[in-house]
């Protein structure tokens, strides 16, 4: 399915005839009649974009239904992730569920915590007040392979468990209000999926009360994709992806956290003292340069727009600095608007490459004042066995040959 490797010569030659043949000889499309409207009632990317795919990382998991595919960050623009390229993380495979048969149930861990346990159809949920908001989703294990040392070649594999969409749905708070929740005692919320794993995760009531947690059916203008939880998923802004329960079938409120498989066996972060941090949920401020990045080749000296993504699970990105000398000196990048809370922010900065080796890094800061740490700073506190929540500064080595390599600095 992938296109043939591209010719590497990046050039703009005049040609022997006194001009580029691509200009002097008019192309077929300038001299003919093209295709009709609605050739595709639902369109696809150009055939020349076949290289832009989400991909699993070879050998990362033993099965393909409890696995991951990574978004091709190196080829994306702006902040919206095309839904067809959204990263995937399934625990028991994905399904295409008939939405007319899907139900959402609300209940309390005991009767006194919710006056009125309820059942909703999709039709009913879609009648309720909706909000539409842009948020990133990042797997807690994103960049998890790189805790100890460099493991994978491109930013697709280092950072590609990251995507960003406009989500539409009903604030969970509104549903809980309808059901009459005892907010004094019910401080924990359980989301449960309808797939085989019936994924469960505990979410703090504080986040729900903030209005940020959404019971979402819309993603980037259309319904959620099946791989992302069609027809209903929980959106928990700022929190690792595993909490964004897909195929959402049930919400329970309770007075204690639930210690689910993915809060007691996985998504627990092993610290140097041998203890695991449990219920570590927030994705802290992080960034990565996506162009140039690992596995790419600069074919010429000269001007390059260095571009990348920054985000924070605690709020808005406030500033991004970029270094091309391995962190010795930094310049502040331009942020593309809108800068939104718990959302990707695209940054850009000028760079003229002189052909010598360069070490490209980005460092993000959020509006709480938190600064993205280096690997050293992160490891000094958390060691190298955590798997989750690796938000260290990424380094790309641009070699004299132009080839860009994933490296870590001493």
């Amino acid at each position, binding site marked *: 399915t992938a296109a043939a490797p591209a010719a590497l010569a990046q050039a703009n030659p005049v040609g022997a005839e006194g001009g580029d043949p691509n200009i002097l000889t008019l192309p077929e499309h300038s001299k003919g009649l093209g295709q009709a409207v609605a050739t595709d009632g639902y369109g696809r990317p150009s055939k020349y974009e076949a290289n832009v795919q989400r991909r699993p990382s070879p050998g990362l998991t033993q099965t393909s239904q409890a696995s991951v595919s990574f978004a091709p960050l190196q080829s994306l623009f702006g902040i919206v992730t095309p839904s067809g390229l959204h990263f995937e993380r399934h625990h028991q495979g994905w399904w295409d569920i008939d939405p007319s048969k899907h139900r959402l*149930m609300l209940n309390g861990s005991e009767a006194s915590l919710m006056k009125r346990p309820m059942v909703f159809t999709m039709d009913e949920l879609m009648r309720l007040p909706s909000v539409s908001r842009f948020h990133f989703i990042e797997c807690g294990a994103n960049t998890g392979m790189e805790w100890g040392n460099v493991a994978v070649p491109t930013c697709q594999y280092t950072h590609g468990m990251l995507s960003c969409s406009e989500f539409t749905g009903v604030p969970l708070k509104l549903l809980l209000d309808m059901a009459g929740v005892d907010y004094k005692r019910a401080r924990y919320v359980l989301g449960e999926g309808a797939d085989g794993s019936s994924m469960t995760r505990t979410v703090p009531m504080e986040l729900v009360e903030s209005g940020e947690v959404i019971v979402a059916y819309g993603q980037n203008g259309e319904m959620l994709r099946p791989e992302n939880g069609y027809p209903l998923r929980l959106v928990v802004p700022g929190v690792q992806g595993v909490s964004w329960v897909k195929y959402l079938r049930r919400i329970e409120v309770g007075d204690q956290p639930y210690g689910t498989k993915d809060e007691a066996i996985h998504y627990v972060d092993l610290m140097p003292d041998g203890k695991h941090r449990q*219920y570590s949920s927030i994705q802290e401020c992080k960034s990565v340069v996506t162009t140039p990045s690992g596995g790419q080749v600069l074919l010429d000296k000269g001007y390059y727009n260095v571009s990348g993504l920054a985000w924070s699970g605690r709020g808005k990105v406030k500033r991004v600095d970029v270094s091309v000398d391995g962190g010795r000196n930094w310049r502040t990048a331009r942020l593309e608007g809108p800068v939104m809370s718990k959302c990707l922010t695209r940054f850009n900065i000028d760079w003229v490459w002189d052909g010598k080796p360069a070490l490209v890094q980005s460092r993000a800061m959020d509006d709480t004042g938190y600064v993205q740490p280096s690997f050293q700073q992160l490891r000094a506190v958390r060691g190298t066995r955590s798997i989750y929540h690796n938000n260290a500064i990424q380094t790309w080595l641009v070699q004299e040959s132009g080839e860009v390599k994933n490296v870590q600095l001493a």
Partner: protein
Amino acid sequence: LGTALGAESRYPQVGRDATPKELAAWDIDVRPDFKGLPKGQGSVQRGMDVWEGKCASCHGVFGESNEVFSPLIGGTTKNDVATGRVARLMDAGFPGRTTLMKVPTVSTLWDYINRAMPWTQPKSLSTDEVYAVTAYLLNMADVVPADFTLSHDNIGQVQARMPNRNGMSTDHGLWPGKGMGNGGKPDVKARACMKDCVPGVALASALPDFARNAHGNLAEQNRSVGAQHGADTTQAPRT
């Protein structure tokens, strides 16, 4: 969204009461305090039958297989059962971590097996089968003896023997609520130096050249136009 009306009456004709039967069908979660745990029981012996019939093909006869997933059993000791801390987690050199090394709460095992296993037929086990196979796993990990029968009555005592029951901490800043954690205070603190921030720069780690094609040909993983193209990793690095 900002009216004074009660929420129940603000959205007429939308949603209805859940029935007791419906709640029973879907409210299956089991919490660490065993809220939600249905009554029942299962012996290690019966658990062995369930395991060998329905689980061992994926997880191995002793829960040791890493063919379809990482091993469930291994790495815990009798001493861990006594202390509630898995000693090998303190040894950075010990490879891998099994399920039993990590899981602090027996409810988690019960709940997860009940909702999700066997992988290709989740929710097909009877309540007693879940008790039994959980008992069998715990027996393989030396948490309960071979003649043990796990039940809703004694599961609390079993919890007091979980090898890693004291191995968890919520003393961190990554829980976005007040009930647990340190209230959101970050553990790692960096500052945004701008000039002459580090004395020298040296590589600590880099992808070795022999692995450059391990993720496939990167030329085929970048679009055919762009500021940069993908490296042809079927070839040796350019020099």
